[in-house]
């Protein structure tokens, strides 16, 4: 049954993708026929699998939607926004039905929606009664005439895909190639017949002799001289009818394997254990190599190194298997933005890039809600109303940018709007009203921290899009749990950008092992920008912050030992790990740098261990837990730590 849901999901994904394309055709003359075909095919497949799963309600709805799509392809009707809504409505309802089915609940009612779609099919089906007629769009006739003037013969190729042909590797692409070999393709289009059969027609300008007709037939192509649409349609020869089968028009490529994620998790776990064992092997072989003859010691080290390399390759391979493109979740967002734009009366353009960026399947699943929330926030809080934008001399159409990219071992996702920027006054005001002491102009890190507090909202009334005050806290939580970080950038009058930086994969990461206050900690290397050292004398007190000179400015420092209430070793020099960039850079002061290791990340979810600066734990081969640091949490708890100290100071003063 899980397969059924997975398959439904795939088709829904495909439909959403096609709908995005289709949206651009609203109110234009005729929607793009390839897109319609994609949609048609998906609804058709869905209808089939719904039928098999006994989901009659869904089957009926998919069938009706299919009819509607067919009526769209048959005619040169103007495709209206209402028509688009009917399609998105049907898709949403189908998804609801599947979800209800999964949860064992009764399906939602579809009768009103069915009537709605039926109304859109009302136009006469004249075109459908002439199944073999040509329906090339305008402009083709002129090209045909021009080719004829040049003495070329115009051929009409009709390709009919079938299971048998596809097994021989003959598909629409091979048919197109064949047609191209004949001459210039003047027109090509898919064609949907009554009954749902899909054909492809090509109009080709070529030589008078097209070659052996039998060869064309073998390719599944019926070749005929082209006849202008007004002429009576030529009848097709009988053999093509034989090839007709109940098989779907497209067969999914058979070299794709669908794997349950838990099986991959299990492999990853074994992989993680191997990484730990190899680390132990290395430790022990380093220790005993002094007692071995040089040659033996060297070959032991070589084997160990080779083992390590292969293990890393294996890890990379395993990791790649788990990667899926982030487009999976980006696809949903245009609909959200569309709905919200309509509700709020704002004009919004959504610019999406980097959909092909790959990220761990586990992370993608967990990213859905945070991204949805950030986009909603951008629409509801970030963007001004139409009037406000015009008054501010900005383009009435607002832009929300969604951008994904891979940088090293991290995936970076940006959600940006070109709205008014964060309302610093409102945030500070609301923070003070709830008893939090803040400066008049908090920096971006502080602002982010404030809006991420549970229950924080600058809205008085909760509306649908945003304003319940749980959102940012949840976003922050999720991102921290995934070992990632959020960076906020706000420019008054220009907009807000949230940058999410996440590890490519969760299970295994490179980390720096550091010691502080007699305890070992692991710091994910992807978060560390730079490692530098500091002598105690270089550390200065600036107001209540400890800072050290760094590049052209100063770097605020967080002493790990004192933050954790441990006693730091006294040393002549401290390693400083720089996390964050630019103005938000912070230096983490440790006692010693113990080395770099590949670690297996175990998440720490128990409520008893909800400590802000800890992202998880790992084991380095000796069975002892080593805590993994979380940079966002470190910065936050350092701030709270300082606040507490300040309050104490005030009491004494």
């Amino acid at each position: 049954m899980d397969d059924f849901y997975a398959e439904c999901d795939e088709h829904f994904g495909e439909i959403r993708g096609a709908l995005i394309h289709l949206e651009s055709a609203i109110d234009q003359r005729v929607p793009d026929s390839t897109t319609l075909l994609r949609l048609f095919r998906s609804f058709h497949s869905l209808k089939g699998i719904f039928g098999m799963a006994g989901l009659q309600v869904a089957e009926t709805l998919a069938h009706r939607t299919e009819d509607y799509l067919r009526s769209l392809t048959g005619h040169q009707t103007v495709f209206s926004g209402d028509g688009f809504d009917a399609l998105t409505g049907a898709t949403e309802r189908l998804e609801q039905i599947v979800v209800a089915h999964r949860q064992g609940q009764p399906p939602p009612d579809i009768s009103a929606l069915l009537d709605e779609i039926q109304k859109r099919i009302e136009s006469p089906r004249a075109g459908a009664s002439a199944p073999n007629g040509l329906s090339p769009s305008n402009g083709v006739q002129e090209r045909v005439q021009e080719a004829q003037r040049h003495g070329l013969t115009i051929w009409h190729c009709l390709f009919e895909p079938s299971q048998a042909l596809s097994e021989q590797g003959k598909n629409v692409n091979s048919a197109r190639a064949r047609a191209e070999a004949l001459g210039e393709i003047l027109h090509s289009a898919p064609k949907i017949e009554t009954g749902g059969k899909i054909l492809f027609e090509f109009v080709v300008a070529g030589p008078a002799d097209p070659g052996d007709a039998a060869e064309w037939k073998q390719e599944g192509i019926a070749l005929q001289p082209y006849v202008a649409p007004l002429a009576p349609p030529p009848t097709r020869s009988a053999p093509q009818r034989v090839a007709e089968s109940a098989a779907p028009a497209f067969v999914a490529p058979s070299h794709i394997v669908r794997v349950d994620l838990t099986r991959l998790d299990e492999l990853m776990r074994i992989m993680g254990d191997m990484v730990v064992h190899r680390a132990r092997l290395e430790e022990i072989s380093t220790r005993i190599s002094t007692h071995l003859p040089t040659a033996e010691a060297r070959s032991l080290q070589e084997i160990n190194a080779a083992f390590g390399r292969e293990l890393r390759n294996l890890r990379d391979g395993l990791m790649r298997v788990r990667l899926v493109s982030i487009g999976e979740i980006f696809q949903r967002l245009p609909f959200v933005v569309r709905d919200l734009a309509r509700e709020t009366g704002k004009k919004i353009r959504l610019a999406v890039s980097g959909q092909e960026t790959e990220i761990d399947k586990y992370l993608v699943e967990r990213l859905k809600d945070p991204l949805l929330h950030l986009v909603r926030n951008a629409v509801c809080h970030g963007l001004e109303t139409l009037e406000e934008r015009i008054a501010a001399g900005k383009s009435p159409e607002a832009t929300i940018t969604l951008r994904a990219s891979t940088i090293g071992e991290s995936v970076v996702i940006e959600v940006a709007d070109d709205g008014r920027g964060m309302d610093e006054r409102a945030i500070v005001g609301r923070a003070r009203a709830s008893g939090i002491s803040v400066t008049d102009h908090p920096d971006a890190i502080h602002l982010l921290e404030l809006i991420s507090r549970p229950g924080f909202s600058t809205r008085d009334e909760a509306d649908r899009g945003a304003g319940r005050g749980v959102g940012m806290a949840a976003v922050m939580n999720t991102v921290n749990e995934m070992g990632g970080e959020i960076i906020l950038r706000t420019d008054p009058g220009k907009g807000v950008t949230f940058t999410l930086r996440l590890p490519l994969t969760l299970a295994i990461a490179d980390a720096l092992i550091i010691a502080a206050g007699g305890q070992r900690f692991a710091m994910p290397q992807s978060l560390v920008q730079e490692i530098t050292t500091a002598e105690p004398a270089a550390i200065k007190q600036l107001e209540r912050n400890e800072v050290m000179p760094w590049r052209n400015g100063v770097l605020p420092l967080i002493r790990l030992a004192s933050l954790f209430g441990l006693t730091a070793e006294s040393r002549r020099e401290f390693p400083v790990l720089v996390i964050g960039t630019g103005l938000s850079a912070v230096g983490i002061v440790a006692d010693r740098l113990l080395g770099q290791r590949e670690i297996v990340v175990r998440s720490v979810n128990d409520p008893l261990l909800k400590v802000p600066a800890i992202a998880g734990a790992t084991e380095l081969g000796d069975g002892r837990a080593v805590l993994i640091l979380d940079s966002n949490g470190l910065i936050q708890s350092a701030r709270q730590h300082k606040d507490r100290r300040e309050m104490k100071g005030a009491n004494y003063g």
Partner: protein
Amino acid sequence: MAETLREADSYILFELAGTAYGVPSRDVQHMEMIEHITPVPNASPHVDGVVFSRGEVVPAVNLRLRFGFPKAESTLSSRLIIVRIGPRKVGLIVDAAREFRRIAADTIQPPHESITGLSGSYLAGIAKLGDRVVLLLNISEVINNGNEILSPAPERSLAETT
């Protein structure tokens, strides 16, 4: 509370500050000797830290501190009882644990009214095994992240139930 006690359930009995306690054996995954516990900075005072147990990170709750007894150095007889409640896996540090027993439902009394307040919520019942008294714990209450629960002094609970 009654539904947690069946006809004759089996319990793991352990010792803490000279008193016998019992936890339903169905909640117990396994027991371990206490080796290294990694302290977790800024965690609740009664959480000694984390341990790796069978590939998972498990918080180690010091039951002595949880119940308001003074902390004791761990000895050879100290044990970590790993319990699983729903999705959570938590280790309980106890002074000693060596007994597995079936306890008949009719030997169990509900906790006395006077201790059913804050401290009573984690007490599922009191069993009398001959002349021994065993306090049966409600594990999910013990491992919730509340503040330190007021411990019923064992003397008092004994005095009140006998």
